[in-house]
């Protein structure tokens, strides 16, 4: 088995840790922007905080992908091929519905990016069903 090479999707505690750090940085930045009075420098630091968490997650994701075997890479490729366009279609649809007045105008569009990981996970499920 390739678990010894860190090849199994289950064998990546570093990736899970990076996901957790990114999530915590998002929650912390959202909370601080909402409840704290921030100056120009501290406000910039808080605004950049999730990007730093995201960069760490990206680094771990690339590291993880490079350790996958050929079938696992194929699954990831198909997941992205499904997830990316699906997320684009949904984002465009929601954007047009929002600006067309069909969705509540108070709706916060900042959190729409969350659709992307959900679409990617959907892609992973579809690709895994095909091969595994």
């Amino acid at each position, binding site marked *: *088995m*390739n*678990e*010894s*090479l860190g*090849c*199994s999707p289950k064998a990546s505690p570093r990736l899970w840790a990076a996901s957790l750090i990114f999530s915590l940085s998002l929650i912390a930045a959202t909370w601080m922007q909402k409840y704290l009075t921030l100056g120009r420098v501290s406000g910039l630091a808080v605004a950049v905080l999730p990007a730093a968490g995201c960069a760490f997650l990206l680094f771990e994701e690339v590291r993880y992908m490079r350790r996958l*075997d*050929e*079938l*696992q890479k*194929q699954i990831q490729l198909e997941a992205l091929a499904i997830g990316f366009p699906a997320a684009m279609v949904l984002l465009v649809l929601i954007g047009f519905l929002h600006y067309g007045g069909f969705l509540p105008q108070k709706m916060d569009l900042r959190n729409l990016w969350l659709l992307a990981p959900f679409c990617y996970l959907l892609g992973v499920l579809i690709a895994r069903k*095909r*091969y*595994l």
Partner: protein
Amino acid sequence: MKNRLRVLRAEQDWSQAELAQRLGVSRQTINALETGKYDPSLPLAFKIARLFGRPVEEIFEPDADLR
């Protein structure tokens, strides 16, 4: 593409996990190969052939429309 991977593995009395370890892939990949859900790359096919000491064409057989 059809293959004789399951038969050859059984002859060696190896588990899927054992074969996966010898080939440096995941157990799921061996299962997908054996069930015909996934065709290996050329390097992996040669690695399998070398491991079992047989020519590639003795392990992998193309579908009827490719023959």
